[in-house]
């Protein structure tokens, strides 16, 4: 039967195709142009023609049957004949149907049924007449089919059962069961149907099995056995892979696999009631073989859930469908259903998705040309309500639960809504909601944008504008505060947003209580973005407007920091000072901070300049000086100068160092760096051996810091230096300050008092000397006291105040004892001097006491007594360890004896006889000779001692001609140099090219004896002997041991300096020391020889001259030679040459 049916169909198809070819040509696209009336007529004609052919075939078959009696193939001919009747029956049906133009009539069936009955008769004959015909099962099967067509179900059942009963192995058995099952199913007899379908399962190789399973599943569904049903559907889906083209009557066009899958959706909702929608999706994805099929089954499933009011499940499946589907109408349906589910559930968790689905659907429709505007408008209107409802519900829920997630979803939903429903009647409200949701979801950037948009839209509504602008400011601000959540663009946008909205807010609503905060943040944003110029400008305006509050303090700090970050130090300092000067800013802590910051910055500026100056000193120095000069207030100028001093010291730029230092001291007397600066200057001037400057700085230091523990010492040193430099007046000023200010330390009193006294004496101010010594007698040491007493006594004596002199002399004599004698050369010297003058005070009386023309015994006796006393006194002095006073005593002892001798000889003769007279004269002469001799002995002692001591002291050396041993006429001679020449080079030495270089070198190598020698020589050569002397002495103090040429040179310098200063004795010692270090020191040799020569130590002089080289070498020597020494040398050389 199946083959038959197929054969008929193919036949019909062939007919139609053929007819098509006849009717119209097929164009390149396969379209056949047709005329329906024509077509129908032609079709009927064709059917009639076909019927003729079938009738012809029936006639032929009959004829053949007649000719084939008893032939074995006769039943097959009958079978063919029956099939031809069936064909004719169908053609007859179609002819009738087409002739009536579509309207059907019972008569249409009559002819057809008649022919079917003829066929059934033929089939029955085969069964009856040919019981052995091998295809009897087929005949039964065909008959059952025709009986079903004729609606004769009993007969149909009978034949199917006959097949099952009689031909159990027939291939028609499973199909018979299947069709019987269908029959009972149709009748509602599920059990019977089920039994028949189950029988089919026993024939696994039959195509009917797949269908039977599917049908059986439905039986289970009818019995509410969904589990069994779904398993069968699953099997049907899984096992029907190769049965796409099932060749079973009535099932030919049925896609059982797809049907089974779709029906699984029905069962699934019953069978897996507890499964989640996600599980359901997974389940159906597993059984679906394509996305398209999956969509189909999901639609069924979603609908089932919807019907069963499983809202959550339905909604989720519809959402999944919305992702997969593109069809606008379907999407709209899904949206509607989702909305229904969500409404029913009252849960709005996925509103953002749902909103997207609605908009996706409407968007597709919106731009579709085939949908009318009316439909679009209606849908937009309807769905806008759904969408609005969804979003606002979620928003309410979010507010209630205070859930940031819900707010975020609500915001997403609003966003989607507003993007599409841009003409919504509630657009404004939704915009507000959107803004709020964004803010509450902590999406501050977008909240800021949204509020800004609202502010723009509410330009004519000040209240709303104010709120929206402020909300925008807050949103942007909060976004920036959490900048880690923003990318670079978002951050830039938020900053710009805050700035714009903030400025607008402040401008439009200046009285708002938030304006202060807003303006602060507007300024802050520029700072945060690194736009420091803007930040400074905005913050400055802010501070100017709100100088009083805490924000102002923060703003000031940020302004300063902005300047700092810009490295605009000048700007920072200027602003800082402005703040400090602003009385409206009262935050004292802030001001303290600003002071520190400004100071630190000033230091930084100076440091930078200082660092730069290290690389380019001339430029850097100039900049530092400019800065110092340009700075109107103390801070930076002070620091610049300080840096200049430090750098200059480092760079050995003495000019800059001392110029800067002096300016510093002058300009910034209260600077906390003054002490260190002055120390630096003292140290530097010491290093370069500029003692005048040293003294000056020491004095300044002591003046600025009188309470400093070194102040007294500094003054003392300054006094000493000044004294050594011959600046006695200045020296004493220092000592006076010491006396007036300090309780002098041990040992200092002696030094101070005697230096002062010396200075006064040098200044011919003996009263001053007396005063200072008298006034401080108790402060002096034991030896000092005696020395002072002696000196005071001497000075009083000098002044003619005998009484006072006596008083002190007595005190001195009383105090001078073994304890003190010989302990201190100065004391011994002073004591000797005092003693000498004490003796000497009678010398003039003695000399003046003369006989006046007649012998006066009283006079003689008195003179003899004076002689005795004087001689006794001189002799006592000769015991003191003081060469000058010893020699003086000798000298005067000689003089008084010679005087007495003269006195005797020249005394008037008494009135005596000639003989008596002769004897008298003889006796007188003898007496006088005795005194003369004694006097000569004293002179001899003098000469011997002077020569022994190589005395070169002008005070005594001139008294006696050492060569002849005779008393000279001139008495006291001039010093070797004649008179002292004083020149002060002072700071000019720093400009002098020669000394400047030496000073600079000394800055680095202050102990370099060679350098010091050169410097000493330089000063001596320039006439500043005292300074040259001091430098040389300092140099020697630095050379600890051993002999050296340098030492010899230094001693020579000292000697020369002393020569110039008239200190010939000291000069001699120095030259001798020089020669002890180096016997070949030409300078010392020439100088010493000259000195010896000058003071009459000829032998010693010649012993040196004899060893000296020629004049050329003398001229070329680098050592200093006193001009007079050179002159004497040259004279001696000249004489020698002669």
């Amino acid at each position: 039967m199946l083959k038959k049916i197929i054969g008929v169909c193919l036949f019909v198809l062939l007919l139609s195709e053929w007819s098509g070819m006849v009717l119209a040509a097929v164009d390149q696209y396969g379209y056949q142009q047709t005329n329906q009336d024509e077509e129908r007529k032609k079709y009927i004609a064709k059917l009639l023609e076909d019927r003729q052919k079938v009738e012809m075939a029936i006639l032929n078959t009959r004829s053949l049957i007649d000719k084939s009696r008893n032939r074995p193939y006769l039943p097959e001919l009958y079978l063919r004949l029956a099939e031809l009747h069936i064909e004719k029956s169908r053609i007859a049906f179609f002819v009738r149907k087409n002739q009536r133009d579509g309207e059907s009539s019972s008569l249409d069936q009559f002819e057809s049924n008649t022919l079917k009955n003829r066929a059934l008769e033929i089939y029955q004959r085969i069964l009856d007449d040919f019981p052995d015909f091998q295809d009897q099962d087929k005949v039964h099967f065909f008959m059952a089919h025709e009986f079903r067509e004729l609606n004769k179900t009993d007969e149909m059942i009978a034949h199917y059962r006959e097949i099952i009963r009689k031909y159990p192995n027939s291939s028609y058995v499973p199909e018979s069961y299947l069709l019987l099952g269908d029959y009972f199913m149709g009748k509602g007899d599920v059990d019977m149907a089920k039994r028949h379908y189950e029988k089919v399962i026993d024939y696994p190789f039959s195509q009917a099995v797949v269908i039977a399973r599917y049908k059986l599943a439905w039986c289970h569904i009818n019995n509410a056995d969904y589990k069994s049903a779904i398993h069968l559907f699953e099997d049907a889906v899984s096992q029907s892979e190769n049965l796409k083209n099932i060749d079973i009557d009535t099932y030919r066009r049925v896609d059982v696999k797809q049907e089974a899958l779709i029906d699984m959706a029905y069962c699934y909702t019953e069978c897996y009631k507890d499964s989640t929608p996600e599980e359901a999706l997974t389940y159906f994805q597993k059984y679906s073989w394509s996305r398209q099929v999956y969509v189909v089954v999901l639609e069924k499933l979603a609908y089932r859930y919807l019907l069963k009011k499983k809202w959550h499940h339905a909604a989720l499946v519809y959402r999944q469908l919305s992702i997969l589907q593109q069809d606008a109408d379907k999407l709209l349906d899904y949206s509607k259903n989702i909305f229904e589910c969500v409404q029913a559930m009252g849960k709005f968790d996925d509103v953002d998705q749902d909103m997207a689905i609605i908009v996706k659907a409407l968007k597709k429709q919106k731009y579709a040309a085939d949908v009318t505007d009316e439909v679009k408008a209606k849908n937009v209107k309807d769905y806008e309500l759904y969408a609005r409802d969804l979003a606002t519900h979620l928003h309410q829920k979010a507010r209630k639960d205070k859930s940031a997630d819900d707010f975020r979803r609500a915001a997403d939903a609003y966003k989607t809504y507003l993007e599409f429903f841009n003409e919504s009647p509630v657009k404004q409200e939704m915009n507000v909601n959107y803004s709020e949701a964004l803010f509450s979801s902590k999406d501050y950037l977008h909240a800021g944008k949204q509020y800004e948009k609202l502010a723009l839209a509410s330009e004519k509504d000040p209240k709303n504008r104010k709120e929206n602008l402020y909300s925008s400011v807050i949103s942007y601000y909060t976004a920036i505060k959490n900048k880690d959540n923003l990318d670079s663009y978002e951050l830039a946008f938020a900053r710009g947003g805050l700035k714009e909205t903030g400025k607008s807010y402040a401008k439009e609503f200046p009285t708002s209580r938030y304006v202060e905060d807003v303006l602060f943040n507007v300024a802050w944003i520029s700072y945060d973005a690194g736009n420091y110029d803007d930040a400074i400008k905005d913050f400055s305006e802010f501070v100017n407007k709100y100088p009083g509050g805490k924000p102002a303090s923060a703003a000031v700090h940020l302004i300063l920091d902005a300047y700092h970050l810009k490295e605009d130090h000048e700007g920072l300092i200027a602003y800082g000072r402005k703040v400090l000067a602003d009385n409206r800013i009262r935050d004292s802590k802030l001001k303290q901070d600003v002071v520190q910051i400004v100071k630190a910055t000033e230091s930084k500026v100076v440091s930078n300049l200082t660092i730069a100056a290290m690389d380019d000193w001339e430029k850097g120095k100039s900049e530092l000086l400019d800065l110092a000069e340009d700075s109107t207030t103390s801070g930076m100028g002070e620091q610049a100068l300080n840096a200049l001093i430090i750098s200059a010291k480092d760079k050995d730029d003495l000019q800059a160092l001392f110029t800067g230092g002096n300016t510093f001291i002058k300009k910034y007397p209260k600077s906390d760096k003054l002490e260190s600066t002055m120390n630096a200057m003292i140290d530097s001037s010491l290093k370069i051996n500029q003692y005048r400057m040293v003294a000056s700085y020491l004095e300044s230091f002591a003046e600025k810091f009188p309470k400093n523990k070194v102040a007294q010492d500094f003054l003392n040193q300054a006094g000493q230096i000044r004294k050594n430099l011959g600046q006695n007046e200045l020296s004493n000023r220092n000592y006076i300050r010491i006396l007036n200010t300090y309780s002098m330390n041990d040992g200092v009193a002696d030094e101070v008092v005697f230096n002062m006294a010396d200075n006064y004496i040098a200044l011919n101010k003996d009263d001053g000397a007396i005063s200072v010594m008298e006034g401080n007698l108790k402060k002096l040491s034991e030896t000092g006291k005696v020395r002072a007493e002696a000196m005071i006594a001497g000075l009083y004596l000098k002044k003619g105040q005998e009484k006072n002199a006596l008083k002190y002399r007595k005190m001195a004599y009383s105090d001078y004892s073994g304890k003190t004698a010989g302990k201190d050369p100065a004391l011994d010297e002073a004591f000797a001097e005092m003693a000498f003058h004490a003796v000497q005070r009678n010398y003039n009386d003695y000399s003046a006491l003369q006989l006046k023309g007649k012998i006066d015994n009283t006079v003689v006796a008195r003179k003899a007594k004076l002689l005795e006393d004087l001689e006794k006194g001189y002799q006592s002095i000769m015991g003191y360890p003081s060469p000058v006073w010893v020699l003086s005593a000798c000298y005067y002892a000689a003089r008084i004896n010679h005087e007495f001798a003269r006195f005797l000889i020249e005394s008037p003769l008494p009135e005596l006889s000639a003989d008596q007279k002769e004897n008298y004269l003889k006796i007188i002469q003898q007496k006088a000779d005795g005194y003369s001799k004694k006097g000569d002995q004293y002179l001899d002692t003098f000469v011997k001692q002077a020569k022994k001591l190589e005395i070169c002291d002008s005070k005594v050396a001139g008294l006696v001609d050492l060569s002849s041993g005779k008393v000279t006429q001139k008495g006291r001679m001039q010093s070797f140099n004649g008179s002292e020449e004083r020149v002060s080079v002072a700071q000019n030495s720093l400009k002098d090219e020669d000394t400047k270089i030496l000073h600079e070198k000394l800055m680095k190598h202050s102990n370099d004896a060679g350098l010091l020698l050169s410097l000493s020589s330089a000063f001596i050569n320039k006439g500043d002997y005292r300074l040259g002397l001091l430098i040389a002495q300092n140099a020697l103090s630095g050379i600890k041991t051993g002999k050296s040429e340098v030492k010899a040179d230094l001693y020579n310098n000292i000697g020369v300096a002393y020569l110039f200063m008239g200190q010939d004795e000291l000069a001699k010692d120095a030259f001798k020391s020089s020669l002890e270090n180096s016997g070949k020191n030409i300078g010392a040799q020439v100088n010493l020889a000259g000195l010896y020569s000058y003071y009459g130590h000829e032998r010693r002089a010649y012993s040196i001259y004899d060893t000296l080289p020629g004049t050329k070498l003398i001229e070329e020597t680098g050592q200093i030679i006193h001009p007079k020494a050179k002159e004497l040398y040259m004279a001696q050389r000249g004489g020698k040459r002669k």
Partner: protein
Amino acid sequence: MLYNRRLAGFLGIFILMLSVLAGPYQSDVYAVSSKNESDKKDPKVQPVVANEYDRKDFEKGYHYFEKEDYEAAAPYFYRFVKNHTADDEDYEWAEFFLAISLAKTGFSHASVDILSMLVTRKPNQKIVTYALEVFETIVRTKPFDRELVINQAICDQDYGFVDGRLSNFIHYYQGVYDWQHGFFEWGDGHFRNISKESYYYYKYLYQKAKQELHNDKIDEAIATLKTIMVRDVKETDLKDDVRKMLARLLYEKEDFKAANRLYQDIEQNILDQSQNLMELAWVQYRQGNPEKAMGLLYAFEAPSFKNSFTPEYFILKSFIYKDVCHYQRALDVVEDFRARYGDALTHIYNRKEPITNEALILVLLGKKQINDTFKFLNLLTREKEKVKGIKDSVFQFYMNRLYDLKIRESAETLRNQIQESYEEMANELLKYEEEAYLMAYEIGLDMYQRVTDHHYAGEENKEQKSDKGIVVYPFQGEFWNDELSDYHVSLPDKCNQMEEWDIFFK
């Protein structure tokens, strides 16, 4: 010449962009009318009762269609379709013929619109097959509505009956769609059905490589791409895509030589290869050929590359100069970056509308997705212009409406794409700005370091000679079109040489 042409093109594009991005699309920009055609009333709005047997319009249409007078045929088919329903005889054919007529008369989008609706109704297989052929051709040759053609017409339907080349086409796009939606098994099923030597198979392999890359299976991705490379793939676009992707992967694997070769092999017009050039320059740089890299970078000085978004260019150039101690030049490059993108950055900082950021907008148009939309919008605009030539008012009304709506949609899409990409690009530019600052800082550090090293290393100032002499190909207009791969400049190593500025540190 090329420069002028391209510049003019860009100006035109820019004007168009201004109109599109300024707001909802207005057709008067194209001088059609002051009001959208679709906003007008339908001139034939009176209801027409469809008569099953009223086939006059169809027959007339078909008459002209047979004569290949598609312009005359289209209005008739449209009337037939408008006045009939899908159940009426030849309705689908009428739609189909209308679509073909439209395609033949230059209305590719209108044609696609009709065909995409038609195929979803599953008409007869002949119509579907031919419609799919039209789709396949358009997808490969013209800008088109991806949503409509790929997502809706191709991927939403089951075309099990189609075979051959069309089957490959369908399976490829459905497979990609399934993969994109996470349905990998179904996608695999589709890809298995693509014949092994077809274009779409190679396209599938390319997708597969991308998927492997996405799953961090780089070796597998390289193997897949190499599989394509050894096949005889004729389609240049695909082959270039494969070369580019493979080159990038090999670059990551530090196989610079192979990467270099692949970049060189790319056949795409050099003017569209700014990114490739940039990457090639990186390859050369990483290979230790700074001079070649610099040569490639010179290309970017060409006016043709004016609108390429290549801030990386400045960074790499600066790197190269820094490496060879041309510090001043390196700093100059950083300054160049600021000069080049200063306006763009100002726009960003000032939160101006993307449209006013000319520099970035022009570059954005070069991005594939945006460019596709833009090209499609251009196509719609051109085709809509042709609608004016339609004499039949009913049909013209329909066409105007169709195009207006689609132009509005595309403009909106373009606006959104630009907005989205603009933010990305702006963000990228801001990051590059940061990098430029960092670069300047690092250059400074290097300068100091080098001075220090120099002072401690002795005073031998040696200028290391470039082994290539000076510029091999002097700048002569647009030389780079053919000679880029060989172009290189001399970069003497100045690391041992004190330049003038160093005096400061001495």
